[in-house]
């Protein structure tokens, strides 16, 4: 096999909402352990890409292959089991459950005991539950949250909630991690901290990361490659430096200069 077979291969992806072409001709190949940024003005179709990758929306056309396997038509939870995990723009935690339960829910598919074994609490229940609890505490420790494990998720400070969402996504053992505006609402020092965390996650968990972000310091700081979307089309892609000086990107963000 070709050594550079992409872990995620998206070709000609597109979707229409009624007469609106929300996304068209979207192509991306992501290699293992790559960090890719997805930027663009509001309404450009960034979150739509995530929703298509996880089949929250069914694409009107195009193909998605995850490690060579077609994921089109699979339901969201099957795609998660296949290895695409995501976080949400507006944090979606299991609010009234404890932090450790938030992670353990994502470990659901790593356990195999049946309904009967669970209700009768046979040995497989004890073994797998103990393993899952230990694993979730280890995961929380990576994010410096082990001492908050038993607190309800909604009681956490904002930054910790964002980190918990990433921890929960990682618990599903993904190959590709989709982060939707992870730095939204964070101050510069929290954002800097988050950048280190994202780097750590890539190194420790061996995942490819695609992130949507408006904070340019974060995008330019950690992304190896950036895609710029506008009106549902990719208008530019390249390294941070190429993107920074691309006139099309500047135009999309700032508008055309008058008289030119």
């Amino acid at each position, binding site marked *: 096999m070709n050594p550079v077979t992409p872990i995620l291969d998206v070709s000609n992806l597109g979707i229409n909402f009624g007469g609106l072409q929300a996304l068209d001709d979207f192509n991306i190949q992501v290699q293992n352990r790559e960090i890719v940024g997805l930027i663009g003005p509001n309404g450009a179709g960034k979150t739509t890409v995530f929703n298509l990758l*996880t089949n*929250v929306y069914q694409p009107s056309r195009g193909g998605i292959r995850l490690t060579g396997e077609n994921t089109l038509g699979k*339901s*969201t*939870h099957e795609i*998660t*089991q296949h290895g695409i*995990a*995501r976080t*949400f723009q507006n944090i*979606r*935690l*299991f*609010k*009234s*459950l404890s932090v450790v*339960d938030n992670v*353990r*829910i*994502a*470990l*659901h*598919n790593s*356990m195999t*005991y049946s*309904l009967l074994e*669970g*209700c*009768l*609490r046979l040995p497989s*229940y*004890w*073994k*797998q*539950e*103990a393993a*899952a609890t*230990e694993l979730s505490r280890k995961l929380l420790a990576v994010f410096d949250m082990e001492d908050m494990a038993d607190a309800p998720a909604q009681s956490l400070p904002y930054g910790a909630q964002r980190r918990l969402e990433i921890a*929960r*996504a990682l*618990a*599903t053992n993904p190959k590709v991690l989709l982060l939707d505006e992870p730095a939204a609402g964070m101050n510069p020092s929290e954002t800097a901290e988050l950048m280190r965390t994202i780097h750590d996650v890539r190194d420790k968990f061996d995942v490819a990361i695609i992130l949507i972000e408006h904070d340019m310091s974060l995008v330019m700081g950690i992304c190896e490659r950036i895609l710029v979307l506008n009106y549902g089309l990719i208008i530019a892609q390249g390294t941070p430096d190429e993107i920074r000086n691309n006139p099309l990107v500047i135009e999309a963000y700032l508008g055309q200069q008058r008289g030119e």
Partner: protein
Amino acid sequence: MATRLLKKTSFRYALNATAAAGLYIVLMALIDAKVLNRYQALMLIPIGFNIILAVSLNLSAGFLGQLPLGHAGFMSVGAYAAALFSMAVNLPTNVELPLALVVGGLTAAVFGVVIGLPALRLRGDYLAIITLGFGEIIRVIILNLKFTGGAYGLKGIGRQTTVTWVYISVLVTLFVISTLIKSRHGRAILSIREDEIAAEASGIPTTYYKVLAFTVSAGFAGVAGGLYAHYLSILDPSSFGFMRSAEILVIVVLGGLGSLFGSVAAATVLTILPELLRGFAEYRMVIYSLLLVVVMIFKPSGLCGRYEFSLGDALDKFSMLMRGRLPQKQAPAKGK
């Protein structure tokens, strides 16, 4: 760590089993010693099946977070199935009744799957209305079928429900539902209540778990129906109307959506209360309703919220309290 956990839990199992057996012995002794008169002893049976109904409804309303209004429908399916079964066979009572309860429960569970699959595509108000409609349909069908006795009702069911069988059924229900909730399957059910989209994104097959919770809930309602049938010895479709579903829902909401302990407590109180208020004759329902209004105003999450009582925890707290106090008392003694 796992072995310590196991040790601690097996101690708690023993503790709970002892408490359950102890309560049973006390109840039986009270009945034998005629402290509870015949009427009061008979009251234990409706308390029991109301507990089962409330706890099972709580699984779908409180833990899954989907509000069904047709619980009496599943109860009636279970009641008729169990009654028809026990009338058809001729076995010793202590074999026949449990078998009838299993038949009632399974039949109701099958109905749970059949209704749940289409109904659970909807949520909130829409699900409530669909299940409300289902409850009425079941009632009307039973009213018009020949083998259910139609409007005359089904007569001649053996009066086999005893306090003991009710007690066992309550214990089984509580055990199954509480262990279910604390397993990975239960956490999946809880995650759907918390955020369905996030649950799906965390790899939980949400449709499966919705139907599962709904089915288990319906199944235990069927068991309660079976107990009910063999307690009254006559079944009448009109007793499974919307009002009964509403009554069960009131118990669950009053006790606390998502608290099994709350459901047990509220079922007990709300079954006894109307009897206690008999002295007030026509004001009975006014007082009952006022109580509900007052609780909902001052404690909208229900009497227990999502609190769960655990004998083990209570004992731990108690022993900590004792240990915390003892050194304080001893300290001055040492000084002397």
